[in-house]
């Protein structure tokens, strides 16, 4: 499992989650986004196109990160959720808290 960070031409930090987002690595994601916030970054896209599964700790980390980014005047979006991953957001009603795009391209188009 790994997080791959890039920055698009529009200044959006794109983090791709490869493998799982779970209790064992959620802090790594929080640290990665936290460091980017400290550098002054404010726009974030987390892409799950290559993610196997997410647990409730991973969902909680996303909620926590979204709050922190918003408090600093930024925005965090999500993309690439397959049907199973999207069902986790729907079951927990977290789909009402996040801007979720089908693809990273769609998420970045109007960021």
């Amino acid at each position, binding site marked *: 499992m790994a997080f791959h960070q890039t920055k698009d031409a529009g200044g959006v930090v794109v983090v791709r989650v490869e493998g*799982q987002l779970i*209790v*064992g690595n959620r802090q790594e994601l929080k640290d990665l986004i936290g460091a980017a916030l400290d550098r002054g970054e404010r726009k974030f896209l987390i892409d799950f196109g290559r993610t196997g599964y997410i647990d*409730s*700790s991973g969902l909680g980390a996303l909620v926590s990160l979204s709050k922190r980014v918003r408090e600093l005047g930024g925005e965090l979006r999500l993309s690439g959720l397959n049907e199973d991953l999207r069902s986790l957001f729907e079951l927990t009603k977290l789909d009402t808290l996040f801007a979720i795009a089908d693809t990273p391209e769609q998420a970045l188009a109007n960021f």
Partner: protein
Amino acid sequence: MASPLQLCVRRTPASGVPAVATQVHVRMPSEVECIEQTVSLVTRHCLAGTVPTDRLRFRLQVALAEALANAVMRGNQEETGKTVLVDADLFPDCIRVQVTDEGAGFDPTQVPDPVLPEQIADTCGRGLFLIRKLVDEVHFNEQGNSICMTLRRR
């Protein structure tokens, strides 16, 4: 490095049912870092020899990850020396997985509903809720330190 997990798999006539059940037993230390490997190991054995749907694999992985995280962090409080037991009985039509910790147990009826409007934005408390949504049956022992989850292979 040797795996910290202890695995035992055996095929045995299951008592009281016509089918032969395969039993999978895994003992894992109370370390968060072992959860992903345990999920992978148990899932592989539970689905071996079948053509599972992606949905079944996903439901099993998430339910296992949640039950193991609860056992390691809440049940055993990540105490060194305490272990978590995973016992899976595999039947042709269903998978039954029991996860047991060495903690004092808890009352599952007292867990708040995470989709209430005032709870939705909380950063924790969705684990048991997800298990209930993803598996077909959930039972706890009286002490509350062992959860039994049944998933039908449909």
